[in-house]
């Protein structure tokens, strides 16, 4: 038996890291975690490299049992994590013991949850990445989403587990997932293919996420966008967050599993630091697009990266002070629990 056993995989759980960069010119999609922010914070909490591979869950989390003591952190969508049936906090590293069962419910807020394990997942990298590319059947766990009875070992098993547990993300850095939000975009590269009225419509209307929303892209519905003369272009490169508009006039946001090239006009591109917001949206949620200037966008990106650095410094320097706490081992109906109690003055 390996360290981590998938009892129930949930709706769509895959292994993801930052993605398979470096091969787009050969037609290889990047893939990788949809929500960069949650990926990095989960890894920071458990002391991994920010971009190490984690489990990405979708709408309905998995049920996992452990054959060893581990430190895990859960970020992203709120799927109400429980250990042995008792709710546990998110955005905090948790020590789990051999025999524990981690389970989830349907997401209450957000769409994608992330589970990082201290020491990382022992998944062989393919073309430099552990990310699963399901359509291409490579990477991750045998190139597919997880199934019941899949087992994964931890890569580094000799970690100071006690020191990595109980690290927290300060509340001001924990995102709130809303059902409607504003997404900032930079116009282009083919905004000049659209009528002026359509550009105006794009920036002044609400668009809804349709059911056709997956790791490859989100199809939206809302006011139809009109091309001056046709929606087809000579195929060119697609970027993360590219907003493609085919002939039907409805935008499609290109996400992690996007193809590398395409022949439809792209009206705008979502800025990198709003991709994590996009990643947490689900069908029925609404977005409005806001125009942002390239230089302003770069300032925003810098702030985003600085924020993550601040969090990392904080997490690495701070540890929950457990000195004044009392630990008890409780046995309830034959199951042992470790309980920490703090005296409130």
């Amino acid at each position, binding site marked *: 038996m390996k360290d981590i056993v998938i009892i129930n995989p949930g709706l769509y759980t895959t292994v993801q890291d930052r993605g398979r*960069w*470096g*091969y*787009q*010119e*050969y*037609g*290889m*999609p990047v893939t990788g975690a949809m929500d960069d922010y949650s990926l990095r914070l989960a890894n920071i909490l458990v002391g991994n490299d920010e971009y190490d591979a984690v489990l990405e869950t979708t709408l309905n989390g998995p049920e996992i049992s452990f054959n060893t003591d581990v430190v895990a952190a859960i970020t992203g969508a709120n799927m109400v994590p429980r250990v042995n049936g008792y709710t546990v906090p998110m955005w905090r590293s948790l020590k789990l013991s051999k025999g524990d069962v981690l389970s989830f419910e349907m997401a209450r807020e957000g769409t994608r949850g992330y589970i990082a394990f201290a020491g990382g997942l022992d998944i062989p990298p*393919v*073309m430099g990445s552990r990310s699963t590319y399901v359509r*291409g059947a*490579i990477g991750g766990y045998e190139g597919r989403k997880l199934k019941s009875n899949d087992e994964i070992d931890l890569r580094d098993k000799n970690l100071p587990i006690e020191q990595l547990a109980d690290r927290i993300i300060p509340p001001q850095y924990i995102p709130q997932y809303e059902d409607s939000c504003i997404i900032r975009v*930079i*116009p*282009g*590269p*083919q905004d000049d293919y659209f009528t002026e009225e359509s550009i105006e419509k794009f920036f002044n209307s609400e668009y809804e996420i349709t059911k056709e929303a997956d790791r490859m892209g989100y199809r939206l519905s809302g006011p139809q966008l009109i091309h001056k003369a046709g929606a087809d272009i*000579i*195929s*060119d*490169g*697609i*970027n*993360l*967050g*590219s907003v493609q508009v085919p002939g039907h006039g409805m935008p499609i946001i290109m996400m992690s599993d996007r*193809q*590398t*090239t*395409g022949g439809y006009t*792209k009206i705008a*591109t*979502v*800025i*990198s630091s709003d991709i994590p917001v996009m990643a947490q949206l689900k069908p029925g949620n609404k977005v409005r697009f806001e125009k942002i200037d*390239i*230089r302003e*966008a*770069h300032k*925003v*990106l*810098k702030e985003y*990266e600085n924020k993550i650095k601040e969090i990392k410094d904080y997490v690495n320097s701070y540890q929950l002070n457990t000195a004044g706490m009392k630990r008890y081992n409780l046995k309830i109906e034959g199951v042992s629990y470790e309980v920490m109690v703090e005296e409130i003055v």
Partner: protein
Amino acid sequence: MYDEARYLMSGDKGLVVEFGNEISEPVNEKVRGMYLAIQKSQMPGIYELIPTYRSLLIQYNPLEIEIDSLIEKLSEIEKDLGAIDLPKPRIVEIPTIYGGEFGEDLGFVAEHNGLSEDEVIKIHSSIDYRIYMLGFTPGFSYLGGMSEKIATPRLKTPRTKIPGGSVGIAGKQTGIYPMESPGGWQLIGRTPVKLYDPASETPIILRAGDYIRFIPIDKDEYDYIHDLAGKKQYKIKIVTE
């Protein structure tokens, strides 16, 4: 071709350098030139390049290079493009068995164009095809230059499963399926060479700007190469002329 390249924003980490709005060798050669020149310059902050028919998507980290400075440096490179000698394109030899069980539609393609099967093979394998770009699926190359004499419309009902290595024709295009996939191309042959192997050190051999030369082979040669390729012992022949 444009007099001067257009610089288009593709988000906060992407810049498109567009050389024209047409599919042509001179425009695509500019794309290749720019790609090679940027690689050679080892400019900081650029992490990936995606060459396509008529433009180059540059993915950069704005925290390492400012957009104004990036565009300035790229414009300088672009100005010098005409003056530098590009290395000769590589020609990648693709051994291909035509017809029979390996190319079920060869007969149809011949009939459609009023040719014999041998004539189709001769026409198809007599030209070097430029790889304008790769995309669609890993290792899929968009080739240009096929003779209109063998142009054939797509199948009315696409096949659900086409074996990797299949060589096909769709309208005025020809191409190779790098891996098993569904598709509607008229299949005229198959190569035993693996064009996509994620476990290999070079997972994808073909590059934008290369040329493909189809070399007709018989069943014995096919089996021999197929066997070697399976053992990862077949070395694809690449020539420069």
